[in-house]
């Protein structure tokens, strides 16, 4: 039963993630005054990429991207989507915090094999960025955990459905805002698009990916988008009792994210660290203090 649930969850997450990729391209086009590609374009891209030849730079190169993808998929199991959560009993937020680092790590392994200077710059940027958003993320998680007294996300969703959403309840408001601020960094959207930065370092870690590898990287991005947003919905927007309602909440957050993506250029890496360690960290810290005082 759990296996079936897992399978459904992965497929759902993939569908939503890919849909979001298509939607973001469409909405961005409209903001650019363009017509935009059909919303199915990412699917076409992925089909094409799987049918294209690709060059491998060694076994570590192959392993890295698979590790990265696997890390993102595993995270999906720990996040309740509506009533579905195959791994509800084990782990929770701590596991997610842990697995989240697998994405950059996999890419780093993979990139280390291909001797392209753009990749090494991209990887170092990715790690620095990960380091800077992990700090506020940890503080936010701590605040949520202290407030609800549990590390299980299912429990947190349950409590929220009985009372208020944590985003609307005062002690966690600041933490919620802090999460929204780091969300673009988490997903690599502008203004934190500096990992890819096609105009600067030729799409960074992806520079040597072609064919299947790029397809896997796209899938990883889709899963990662799903995880980042669904975490916010679960922790702060009260989750949902059924997947449809959950999807609607995710959609709202995602569209907000795209609007931010559309109006900003990208930071330089030092500015990104400065920003992330200033505002989101400060907000998350104050949020944590408030939570500690109130409870």
């Amino acid at each position: 039963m759990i296996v079936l649930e897992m399978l459904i969850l992965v497929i759902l997450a993939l569908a939503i993630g890919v849909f979001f990729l298509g939607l973001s391209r469409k909405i961005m086009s409209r903001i650019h005054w363009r017509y935009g590609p059909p919303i199915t374009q990412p699917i076409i891209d992925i089909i094409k990429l799987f049918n294209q030849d690709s060059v491998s730079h060694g076994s570590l190169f192959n392993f890295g991207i698979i590790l990265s993808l696997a890390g993102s998929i595993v995270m999906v199991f720990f996040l309740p989507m509506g009533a579905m959560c195959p791994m509800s009993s084990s782990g929770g937020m701590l596991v997610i915090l842990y697995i989240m680092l697998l994405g950059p790590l996999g890419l780093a392994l993979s990139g280390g094999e291909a001797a392209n200077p753009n990749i090494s710059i991209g990887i170092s940027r990715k790690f620095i960025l990960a380091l800077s958003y992990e700090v506020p993320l940890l503080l936010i998680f701590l605040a949520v955990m202290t407030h609800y007294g549990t590390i299980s996300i299912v429990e947190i969703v349950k409590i929220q459905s009985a009372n208020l959403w944590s985003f609307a309840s005062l002690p966690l408001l600041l933490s919620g805002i802090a999460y929204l601020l780091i969300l673009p960094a988490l997903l690599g959207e502008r203004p934190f698009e500096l990992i890819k930065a096609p105009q600067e370092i030729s799409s960074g870690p992806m520079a040597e990916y072609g064919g299947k590898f790029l397809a896997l990287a796209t899938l990883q991005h889709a899963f990662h988008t799903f995880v980042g947003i669904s975490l916010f919905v679960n922790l702060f927007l009260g989750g949902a009792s059924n997947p449809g309602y959950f999807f609607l909440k995710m959609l709202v957050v995602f569209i907000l994210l795209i609007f931010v993506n559309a109006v900003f250029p990208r930071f330089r890496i030092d500015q990104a660290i400065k920003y992330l360690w200033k505002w989101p960290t400060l907000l998350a810290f104050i949020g944590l203090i408030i939570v500690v005082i109130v409870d």
Partner: protein
Amino acid sequence: MRELELYFGPQHLGMVGNFSITLNVEGDRIIKAASNPGYLHRGFEKLMEYRTWIQNFTLVCRINVIEPDSMELMYSMAVEDLAGIEVPERAEYIRSIYLELARIGSHLFGLWAYANMLGFDTVANWAMYHRDLILDLFEEITGARVYHMYIWPGGVRRDFPKGLKGRIVKTLHKIGSGVPDYDDTFFNSRLFYDRAKNVGTVTRKQALEMGAVGQVLRATGMKYDIRKIEPYAAYDKVDWAIPTREDGDAYSRIWVVRDEMIESVHMIFKLLDDMPDGSVYNRIPNPFKWKVPAGETYVRCESSRGELGLYMASNGGDKPYRVHFNTPSYSHGLTILEEVLKGESIADVGNIMMSLYIVAPEIDR
């Protein structure tokens, strides 16, 4: 830390045109930069020695693709100077209006390149759309979108079509109505300020030493503009100002570009109002038998990127003996860029390059 050699270009999304920079980097800092042009070298000046005076018009405009019109003007002015051809007054006005339109188009292209470089896709798309509106005007005036071959020795090829004045005003108003949007999303944006302020600074001393012209020089507070110093076409007949900034960094340069666009729009309105009637060209001799008297000349004008010069020598034949274009991107791209990139971050290479307004075909010729 290990020193890496990084190639920026020639195939690179951030590279408008075909140009490459070899960077020696340590971590994120650039230690040494070497420009590497020549990907677009066609030997224009050599080819022009093989073509008759009139045939060369198809060639000159292709030297710079971003703004071909100032190249046409240069060539016409040099031929007029050598052959002693007068230009009617109306043609002077038409040339000015047309060149200012070209300047706005070119600046919008530059804005596209710069915004694109910073990842400002939205503004980039808008700028390109607005540039297309200007290209539509060009298409109406000359019949071509990009390479117009409109300016001619002795004037311009044909008069403005009927009712064009209204359409120019309408188009410029449409673009002008976008200025608040541009300001809100781009020019006054905090992130643009963060990315561009104190980046790629060319001090006035450096600028003077290394032969900077155009925006690079004007961004250091120098009011150096050939349109004022040595007025050509109808630039001395209307009143206009040279926009400048003081700091000499990328931020100042882009602001100068913005102010120049607005100044150009105002200038076009004034020129359109003052435009006299009359013929638009004086006849030139039969182009098949046309021989230009022996002699040499140096003419210069202010293109959208700075001072543009043309040295031309004729030995009295039906072809030029020697042509040499002095293009603004030359010193910007080869001398200043190498100097300015030292000590900057890799993320700012394209930022600096585009703010210096380097157009590769112009360097290579």
